[in-house]
């Protein structure tokens, strides 16, 4: 059984805090719940991430994989709060990025659209506070509601988690997410322990970052004379949890339309009988 304490930190059965917020801490994601007077109102949360220089991508803003990590973290948490005492696991994430250049910080908002017996649908919106709240991204995520016996959760409501301090020795996202160097249609990620979420599986944000990097490498390999590339529209279906690793993203470039290259991304857990764990598509543009 896994227990999550009032400040959102995962703890083991012995009550010893196991700080596994590593991924969202890397992007210094601040999170807070927007309280309402109506106890039956859907859960609403907000977040803020500063866009540190070492996390900027080719578009001069937060890399799309980083943006998706923030969206996954905030959206997942919001969806989970909406179904307490049960919790959730993300099953699909779709996002469209309208602006790749960011001043920062970015502010996120998550609204639960539908809370069903088996699933929760949450909409997320991202704006650039440093650019007069210019729109950055819109996303929708669907989460499956987990068996209530799987874990015990305790939160102080309204929930709030401050922005983590800057890293003393920052590394770029590809290094942080243990994505191996390479080119072409196949990109590999080493499943290091710090990339696991509190439930011990690969963090959805890490999957998104892998999809981003892999799609850009695949497109660069087939589009002649292409410059720097960045991911925009993303569709990800999280089919099965990643438990073993290494994790391999195998890409197929489907075609290019008006400068937008659509890449199919199939992600496999190589150490778990090579099973397909995530399938999706990433649209890549030249910046």
């Amino acid at each position, binding site marked *: 059984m896994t227990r999550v304490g009032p400040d959102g930190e995962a703890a083991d059965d012995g009550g010893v805090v196991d700080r596994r917020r590593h991924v969202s801490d890397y992007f210094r994601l601040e999170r807070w719940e927007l309280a309402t007077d109506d106890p039956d109102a859907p859960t609403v949360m907000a977040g803020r991430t500063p866009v540190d220089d070492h996390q900027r991508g080719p578009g001069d803003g937060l890399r799309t994989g980083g943006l998706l990590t923030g969206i996954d973290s905030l959206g997942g948490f919001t969806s989970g709060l909406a179904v307490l005492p049960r919790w959730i696991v993300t099953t699909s994430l779709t996002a*469209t990025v309208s602006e790749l250049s960011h001043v920062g910080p970015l502010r996120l908002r998550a609204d639960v659209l*539908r809370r069903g017996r*088996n699933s929760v649908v949450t909409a997320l919106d991202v704006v650039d506070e440093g650019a007069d709240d210019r729109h950055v991204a*819109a996303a929708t995520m669907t989460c499956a509601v987990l068996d209530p016996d799987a874990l015990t959760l305790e939160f102080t409501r309204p929930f709030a988690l401050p922005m983590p301090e800057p890293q003393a020795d920052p590394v770029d996202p590809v290094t942080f997410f243990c994505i191996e160097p390479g080119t072409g249609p196949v990109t590999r990620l080493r499943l290091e322990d710090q990339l696991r979420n509190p439930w011990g599986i690969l963090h959805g944000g890490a999957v998104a970052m892998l999809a981003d990097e892999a799609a850009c490498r695949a497109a660069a390999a087939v589009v002649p004379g292409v410059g720097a590339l960045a991911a925009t529209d993303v569709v990800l279906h999280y089919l099965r949890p990643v438990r073993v690793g290494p994790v391999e993203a195998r890409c197929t470039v489907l075609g290019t339309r008006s400068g937008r290259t659509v890449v199919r991304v199939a992600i496999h857990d190589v150490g778990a009988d090579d099973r397909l764990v995530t399938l999706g598509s990433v649209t890549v543009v030249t910046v």
Partner: protein
Amino acid sequence: MAYAGYPPPEHLLRDLGMEAELTTETSARVRTRVTPEVSAPDGSVRAGVLATLVDIVGGSIAAPVLYPDRMATADLSVQLVGPPVGPWVEARGTVLRRGRTTLVIEALVVAVDEDGADTTVDGRPADPVAWASMTFAVLPARDGTPTGPMVVDLPMRWTFDGRPFDRPVFDALPIVVLDGPAGRVSVTNRPYLHNYIGAVQGGVAAMLAEAAGAEALGAACGRDGSGMVVTDLQIAYLALGKVGPVVTSTRVLAAGPGSRAGAVVELRDTGADDRLTTVVNVTAEPVVAVGRAS
């Protein structure tokens, strides 16, 4: 795989002239003819029509896989890749994962010739027309639902025969533009547009979002709706549109020379307390060329 009595004789799916084949227990293909009536201003097949095709191929797979349970489309995404270069477009779907509460399906849309072969360009297979994926929510069988085996002889083929459109598909529904720049469009709920449980069909919702997004983004870019082509739809189906009219509202996220054109379209059932039924992320681009498959 059609449910008994569905679609009725007068129905959108019949007028789209869909031809379907369940090829294996977990895969199917459904095709429709490329005509000016189902095409966008640049000659590509409308994203909403492709979404309808994909929804049907997914449903054709899901029905026997889930039997005696039934299903409802929970989400659907379609991304246009290349223009159709053949007389038909065909969605080929396959199961990715069958879970206790959901079924996930991937579909590739390709151009095919009259004989069903992949269309070639300069001796090579043409680029895909679109990539799509969808999730079905499993609706458990109720008491009284037949639980005997569903016998399917493979391959299983069927055709939805109807009357070919004599006007653009948006006019046949019909979609009514209430306020173009605001992305407010409407459709009346009627049997012609129903899914098998009597609500507005998922593909119709996609077409409604496509029309609303094109209108709003066209206005934001200094064009009318016909000056934009919707290339991506990311659809979340939240509730059934059972009463109607179903009316959209649209929030433009970005539109201009320096940014991509995107919008969020919400569909509400105005006859059911304005219930939010569907949320769609829409991406569009200006029309740059007009071409159409012969």
